[in-house]
């Protein structure tokens, strides 16, 4: 079935609205920005080509699920489902636009995300940058909301520990990352 113009326009609008978070989520799974970009395009082109989002009650969560499935399917096909390498994550292109153009902090954050366990990394990306609730994350990852919240707490603590190693630096959480 070919979508009408309204469907295509709606899908393009969703791409503009959530594309950045979806791209980050895909990159957090694959570790490669280019693969993430490909997966994102693949999902949206497929939606425009033969699908529509009318059947999806929660469009945003549905898009995240689509991107996740696309990335995992691609990894399965290419037999490339390997854990994210922190060193390669350091080298690949940037994932964020950092505050105050602090690209050292951006690299630091990317490294901190890369060394998180995959399940925690997914939850933290979905909650902070995807702005999904724990209930939505729970549906998406097929876990309970409590597990999602618990993983989020652990992930946040680990990120903080990696990005701010100095134990006495409690006043300014951004001091080290901006240095």
């Amino acid at each position: 079935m070919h979508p009408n113009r309204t469907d295509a326009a709606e899908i393009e609008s969703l791409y503009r609205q959530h594309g950045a978070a979806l791209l980050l989520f895909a990159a957090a799974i694959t570790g490669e920005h280019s693969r993430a970009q490909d997966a994102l395009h693949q999902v949206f082109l497929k939606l425009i080509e033969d699908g529509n989002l009318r059947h999806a009650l929660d469009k945003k969560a549905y898009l995240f699920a689509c991107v996740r499935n696309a990335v995992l399917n691609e990894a399965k096909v290419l037999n490339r489902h390997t854990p994210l390498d922190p060193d390669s994550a350091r080298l690949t292109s940037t994932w964020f636009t950092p505050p105050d153009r602090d690209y050292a902090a951006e690299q630091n954050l990317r490294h901190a995300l890369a060394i998180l366990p995959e399940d925690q990394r997914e939850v933290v990306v979905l909650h902070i940058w995807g702005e999904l609730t724990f209930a939505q994350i729970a549906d998406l990852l097929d876990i309970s909301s409590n597990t999602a919240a618990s993983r989020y707490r652990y992930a946040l603590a680990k990120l903080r520990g990696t990005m701010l190693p100095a134990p006495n630096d409690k006043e300014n959480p951004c001091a080290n990352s901006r240095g």
Partner: protein
Amino acid sequence: MPIPEDERRQDERRQDERRQDERRKDEGLNEGRVDHDRIHAERIDDQSLTDRRISDQRINDQLIDDQLINDQLINDPPIDEKFEAHLKQFRPLAPQPLPVDSHIRAPRRWFVLVACAATAAAVVAVAGLAFHARPGRIAPPVESFAITDQLAKPQSLTIGTANALLARAPSFKDAIDGIAFPTKPAPLPADKHSALAELSKEKIKL
């Protein structure tokens, strides 16, 4: 001190079980209210029902979120809101534009171009027909036409002059006669020579 991964997972499982028990208890207590909600919902149409459910679900999700965030368990690390806000300052990079732009819009542009070209062609055709269909152009008054003057002019025959003759002649036969039997070929000035005459003078050895 870091908590081992196995211990963390066991802790998660225990917490899940405890919360599921509590939820079952709550569902039992609220059974009457659920029935009332169901009867009320049957009176409204499907679309508004779906919208309401989504909206309720979102509100409910947000409440659960807040509760989950506040309901810190024994082994869970606390949430550093300041650090959370700091992380939110990092904005994810925007993706490349969808390659769908050319994919979807190209046929539309093509269609528009074809439509414009067809319209322009139609306008030109209609204008041409109207121009040629004017009665004054087919049969101008004989008094105003001086075909002999035209033919007497020392100029070679071109498509333009032939068209002009056809347009001005009182009849097609007169025009053809005028073109076929010119009075004299146009004489060249004394200092100029015809290219054909010059070429004919050349002796080509084969």
